[in-house]
């Protein structure tokens, strides 16, 4: 992946820039020692690395505003960073950029159970939002796999999803308001603890804008009461087609499980070898989870059993205890780790219409043969959000590129099937050069106009999302 040539003017001014940043920020909030800035050279797309010019770690919205205003005046690019867990390279720096990290802004500012929201500083981790309210029986619904580490700021940047969004929606459906600092250093309050925007839905376009419109420093999030209980079932099938048909029938039947997860044979075998969850020997496996009281769960699972039976499952296993529930989830939750035992892996997250699942899986199998790289599929079947894991060896010359080419083929396939390049990870650097597969020039132009309004100088994370040749004129 290409990055723009760093500005020599900015690089030459490093000392001056750092000095100026130290004037407006506390001393310990500015890092310029190359030994320390290296810690920020990449995110979870670790194949791409570049140490930034400097790193700032503000503690308040005012400090964020001061840092951005200064960078804007001098013309220094800024790359915002939540917890650095982006799988798409969303917070990968450039050599001439200041990384603005939000890790120190992690306080809970307000909890209001009567109005069902929590207001937090955006550097707070996803899981610790729930952590602040779970003792009272509440939770924050979006649950990306990285929820222990990832920050709300990054969740908002990428509009993160998770396993339970079939019922609860993704970040944008649970975000009520933000404090946004623009690149010019202006602090803007958008939304709040009430429904819908009074004017244009700016919140809707800020969520998922990949840190290109401003830096979110505070967020008002919708919170929900924890259900009384939850219980999974495991259903094994002899083919992907039949498993796919079962998913469609469950949805059509009017049951809305909180999660429908799908694993194919390569993934089942890898997880069995890795953690011995006791999964059946089959081509496709579904894990369906229902929530509610014991009686409500029984009612839903009864219907699911009937539907599953119509498709002749090789296995139907209902968790009878907490321990059995845990074992059903064990393999699914270990799937990435298990695939990781086979080598390095690249995880894609294209979404497809649920109806084209069998064809897309078959074609992925063929692509895997053509490229000679193994691929396992584990994904959120209820909403068609795939997660093909391509296994390769990063130390073998040429394999990284081969894997990326194969990934691109799979993502093009998702778009051809009526889907999209990314369902929850974001475009970032990783999928930037594929955007023209999904969008016509007018579509990208309309999106870039939004950035023109928020960040006219194109200084915020500007080398991401839009192919470089498409954004070239704007980036200057």
């Amino acid at each position: 992946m290409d990055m723009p040539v760093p500005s020599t003017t900015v690089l030459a001014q490093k000392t001056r820039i750092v000095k100026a940043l130290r004037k407006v920020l506390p001393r310990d909030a500015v890092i310029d020692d190359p030994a320390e800035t290296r810690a920020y050279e990449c995110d979870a797309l670790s194949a791409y690395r570049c140490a930034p010019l400097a790193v700032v770690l503000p503690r308040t919205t005012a400090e964020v505003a001061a840092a951005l205003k200064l960078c804007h005046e001098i013309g220094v690019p800024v790359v915002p960073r939540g917890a650095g867990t982006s799988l798409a390279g969303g917070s990968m720096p450039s050599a001439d950029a200041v990384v603005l990290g939000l890790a120190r802004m992690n306080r809970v500012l307000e909890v209001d159970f009567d109005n069902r929201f929590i207001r937090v500083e955006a550097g707070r981790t996803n899981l610790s939002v729930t952590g602040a309210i779970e003792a009272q029986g509440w939770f924050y619904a979006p649950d990306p796999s990285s929820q222990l580490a990832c920050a709300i700021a990054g969740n908002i940047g990428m509009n993160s999803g998770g396993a339970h969004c079939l019922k609860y929606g993704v970040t944008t459906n649970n975000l009520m308001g933000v404090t946004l600092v623009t690149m010019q250093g202006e602090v803007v309050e958008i939304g709040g603890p009430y429904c819908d925007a009074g004017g244009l839905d700016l919140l809707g376009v800020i969520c998922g804008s990949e840190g290109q419109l401003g830096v979110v420093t505070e967020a008002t999030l919708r919170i929900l009461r924890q259900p009384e209980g939850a219980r999974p079932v495991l259903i094994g099938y002899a083919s992907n087609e039949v498993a796919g048909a079962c998913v469609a029938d469950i949805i059509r039947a009017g049951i809305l499980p909180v999660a429908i997860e799908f694993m194919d044979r390569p993934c089942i075998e890898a997880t069995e070898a890795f953690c011995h969850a006791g999964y059946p020997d089959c081509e496709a496996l579904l894990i369906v989870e229902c929530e509610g009281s014991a009686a409500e769960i029984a009612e839903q699972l009864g219907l699911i059993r009937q539907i599953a039976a119509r498709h002749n499952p090789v296995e139907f296993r209902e968790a009878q205890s907490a321990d059995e529930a845990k074992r059903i989830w064990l393999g699914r939750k270990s799937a990435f780790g298990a695939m990781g035992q086979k080598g390095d892996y690249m995880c894609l997250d294209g979404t497809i219409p649920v109806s084209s699942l069998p064809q897309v899986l078959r074609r992925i199998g063929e692509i895997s043969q053509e490229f000679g790289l193994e691929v396992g599929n584990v994904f959120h079947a209820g909403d068609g959000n795939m997660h093909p894991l391509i296994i390769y060896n990063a130390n073998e010359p040429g394999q990284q590129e081969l894997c990326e080419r194969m990934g691109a083929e799979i993502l093009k396939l998702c778009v051809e099937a009526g889907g999209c390049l990314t369902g929850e990870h974001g475009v970032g650097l990783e999928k930037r050069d594929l955007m023209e597969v999904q969008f016509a020039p007018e579509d990208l132009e309309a999106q870039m106009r939004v950035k023109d309004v928020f960040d006219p100088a194109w200084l915020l994370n500007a080398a991401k999302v839009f192919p470089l040749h498409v954004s070239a004129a704007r980036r200057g």
Partner: protein
Amino acid sequence: MRVTRESELADVVREATGPLQSIGGGTRPVGQGGGTALQVAISGISLYEPGALTLIAGAGTPLRVIEDAVAAEGQRLPFEPAAWNALLGTTGESTIGGVVAANVSGPRRIQAGACRDSLIGVRFVDGTGAVVKNGGRVMKNVTGYDLVKLMAGSWGTLGVLSEVAFKLLPAAPAQATLVMDVPLAQAAKVLSQALGSQFDTSGAGWLPGVGVIVRLEGLADSVAYRAGKLAEVLAAYAPKILRDEGAALWRDLAEVKPLQGARGDLWRFSVKPSEGPEIAARLGGKVVLDWGGGLVWARVAEGTDARALAAPYTGHATCLSGAFAAFEPEPAPVAALSRGLRARFDPKGLFNPGKMG
């Protein structure tokens, strides 16, 4: 002017020399601007996959056509959009594009989200006449900026919608309504107790002459169980439990029946739910509460600035009929961003100029 195809719409916009006022069915004439009326009659369902819970339709498709089609498969639009004909005294037929442009959401908004939360794709013609698509037909999509949300509730000021795509939900086989004869002054407490319970309420409001109503939906046994449990939680307010016959109350709430045909200007306030009942009391006269108290509908004497009566409130007001500009002025930095977006999407200032500010 009436257009039936997207290409025709694009031509009209490209050749326009003066303001255009885009309309769907003309049933929600809020904040009227001037200009040549442009009726979007691009109609028809182009894709409906019940197994994938997705539907795509032309923006001019009547809402009723879509509701009938999905109901035939046991599904529904999650956000419960309602007609405002009786409320606003209009005669046209609500279109799905109009619903999106106004981001119309009914009582289920508190559980299933607003119209914008179910909207997964749009096609629209921008102010230069270019056809733009965003989102698509899949439920999870973070590819590029989310212009889908931006278009919802933009009242046709950024572009004219030609096509919209939704995620649907299964229609609930059963429902129950708890009715509590509670005065407005006590409503906040009851509503927050109901919504803060574990029993997954899909509607919560207050109707004059009825009191607080709370809805539960889902599978039959589950609804019966939760209605019983919630009635225990709210026992102090002596709830009556209605089954299917409660549905009429929710239609009344969605269509704001108590304020239909009444005299006076019509306002709505979207506020912090716990503030709703107090705001309603300050407004006086006929009021209705939806969204757990977070949506206040009110009729006030003609020419009254209801915002002055309602203050202080955390949220925003819309004047649906009356002498005031429909939309509350936004704080300067937000207004500047909105103005910037309108100028970029509609550089010639064609679309409903002045409608939103």
